[in-house]
């Protein structure tokens, strides 16, 4: 697997709504820009060999970097695949919607839920939003959140941007009633 570029973004949210966020909320994103494993091959019926060749290695590269960048225990997480315009969205989905990829992150974060995801096709420098949910219970409403990302100069038409995102807590100033109170 060739990685052209790795981008790490760490956001520290000190205030929201005019009030201090204490403790500071941290959100980390790590994105790798790789060649689309199926570039130039036309419509490939069986994606499994490409998945086997790339997905696990990619998870192994990204997951520890997110945890290191976060620098604190993770409480919410999500993932992204942005496919360059010569590829299929299915190519991005193939690489992130497999346990071979996601288990690296779940293991590193002591997490158990499925990772919410964004998959789309875009030009280099496309802006995308990664959804994050709670790491052990996806119904916990306080932790539903989104982080906005743009990787400069990627993905090129034959590339894919694969990203993982983690957050140390729920939304800053979250104050919605729990889901159970509506039942």
């Amino acid at each position, binding site marked *: 697997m*060739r*990685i*052209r*570029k*790795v*981008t*790490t*973004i*760490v*956001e*520290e*949210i*000190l*205030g*929201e709504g005019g009030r*201090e966020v204490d403790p*500071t909320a941290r959100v*980390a994103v790590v994105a790798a820009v790789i060649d689309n494993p199926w570039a130039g091959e036309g419509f490939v019926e069986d994606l499994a060999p490409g998945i086997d060749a790339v997905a696990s290695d990619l998870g192994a590269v990204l997951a520890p970097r997110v945890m*290191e*960048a*976060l*620098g*604190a225990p993770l409480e919410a997480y999500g993932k992204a695949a942005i496919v360059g315009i010569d590829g299929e969205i299915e190519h991005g989905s193939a690489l992130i919607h497999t346990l071979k990829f996601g288990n690296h992150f779940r293991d590193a974060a002591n997490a158990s839920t499925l990772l919410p995801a964004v998959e789309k096709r875009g030009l280099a*420098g496309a*802006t995308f939003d990664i959804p994050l949910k709670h790491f052990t219970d996806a119904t916990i409403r306080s932790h539903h959140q989104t*982080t*906005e*990302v*743009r990787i*400069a*100069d990627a993905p090129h038409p034959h590339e894919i941007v694969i990203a993982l995102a983690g957050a140390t807590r729920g939304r800053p100033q979250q104050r919605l009633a729990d889901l159970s109170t509506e039942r």
Partner: protein
Amino acid sequence: MTSQADQSTTFASLGHQLGVRRIFTVLQEVREEGGHPLDRPVRQAAAVAVLSNPWSGTGVYQDLGERTRDVAPVLAKLLTDRLLVALGGKDAIQTFGKAALVGTDGELEHAAALIHTPYFGNLVREMLGGTAIICFTDGRSEPGPDLKVPLWHKTTAGLRDYYQTIDLHLPDAPHPDEICVIAAASDGPRPFPRIGDRQTDPDVDTTILKGLLS
């Protein structure tokens, strides 16, 4: 890219008291260019502080000095601390640059005040171990802009191999009454630099245009 030191925590709360809402740090590690792997990845980093415009609602005759002295040094500390962590210390850092974008209710002079005085620049230069003047970009923007921050060598600004930019996206900032202040650095030159330098350039002037058109 974590700020583990107690001192950083203290400066972060001080930053918040001075109006800082968010800080984000971007680290970009380029491993290949033109289809060829680099012997050593080039890493560029930028740290961005999003803060309330200290002069929001004031006019063009407002003196900017006092608040500049209060705010700019703390921003310099917050941002350079993050660059140093991201790039592995000042000895690893070879280039630097800076930028400020003021929200649409502010003046360009407000952005300038926070980066173009010794209260910011001298601190950034000292903390990153540089001696050169720091290159920059500034402007006014709606929230969510993309911007490029120029970088050049921290001691020898004329070193052409080190001319480069870092490409940033600022989600949800600056709001109309905010300013984004940015410090940036990298640990190497452009990938595969090969356009020579002042020492190797031939003499070039406008006579080179003569005879091009018949």
